[in-house]
């Protein structure tokens, strides 16, 4: 029996997480999917109850506006990457996903960013950061694709 390669799926809670799951569910047959998410007050308990079989790491939430949390967030993501040794990282945003894309790219891990479907007029701020390092950068809106650096290959909805 061949061992499934590991995929780290990381996003912020809420809409980003819903989108991430609509992708990862389709990948769980082919990969061992490990999850990471900033688990706040509203999410930490419900996650454990609803998804007891999943491996979900909790990380410190961070936004582009508060750089100080970047350090603990980055350290946690680094720990996860070194422990799990994923073949690839998939993120739908926001900032914690961009952190993972950056760290992953330096460690030689394949990195894939799917910009949130909420970004219909322009790529998100976190997405622009991730774009500098991501191997594959996808938008969910055809009009935002340039066919090369930013590709459209479908949408979660």
């Amino acid at each position: 029996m061949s061992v499934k390669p590991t995929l780290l799926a990381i996003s912020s809670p809420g809409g980003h997480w819903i989108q991430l799951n609509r992708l990862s569910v389709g990948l769980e047959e082919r990969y061992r999917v490990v999850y990471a998410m900033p688990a706040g007050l509203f999410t930490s308990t419900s996650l454990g109850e609803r998804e007891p079989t999943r491996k979900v790491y909790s990380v410190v939430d961070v936004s582009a506006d508060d750089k100080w949390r970047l350090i603990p967030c980055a350290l946690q993501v680094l720990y996860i990457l070194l422990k799990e040794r994923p073949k690839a990282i998939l993120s739908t945003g926001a900032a914690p996903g961009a952190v993972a894309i950056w760290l992953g790219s330096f460690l030689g891990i394949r990195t894939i960013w799917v910009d949130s479907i909420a970004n219909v007029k322009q790529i998100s701020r976190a997405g622009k950061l991730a774009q500098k390092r991501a191997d594959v950068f996808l938008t969910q809106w055809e009009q935002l694709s340039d066919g090369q650096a930013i590709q459209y290959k479908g949408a979660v909805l």
Partner: protein
Amino acid sequence: MIFVAVGTQFPFDRLIRAVDEWAAQHALTGMAQIASGEYLPQTLQWERFMTTAVFNQHVQNADLIISHAGMGNIITALEHRKPIIVMNRQHALGEHRNDHQLDGLAWMGQLPGVYTATTQDELYALLARQHTLQAAPLDNDSRRQTLVDFIDQAIRA
């Protein structure tokens, strides 16, 4: 039969009242999920919260879904192939912490089967032509499958 649902986080009395009054004027039946709202529907049946199974049953029974601008309800409506009207909560009216639901309408309105209203007038205009509102086409989920398959290939590349 209509089903109006406002999510679990906040009340949205303005939407519930508007739909309830419209139902009264047009002799419509329906169900309302009102969270912690103060307004109690007079014409529609109502529940504050429901389990996912009960919620899905109401979606299944309805011809039309009316909702706050939340991604969860949109996904549920699309999956059940029901047309959905979404109206945004307004920060100025104390209905949410910010106005991101208004931003949400910009992309939600571009999805097949999703109709948007920012005011009661716009909502009533949509309700007046409710029998012309179309559900998303059956093959809409192929957008997601295409995206998942592309990501799978991108990981292996």
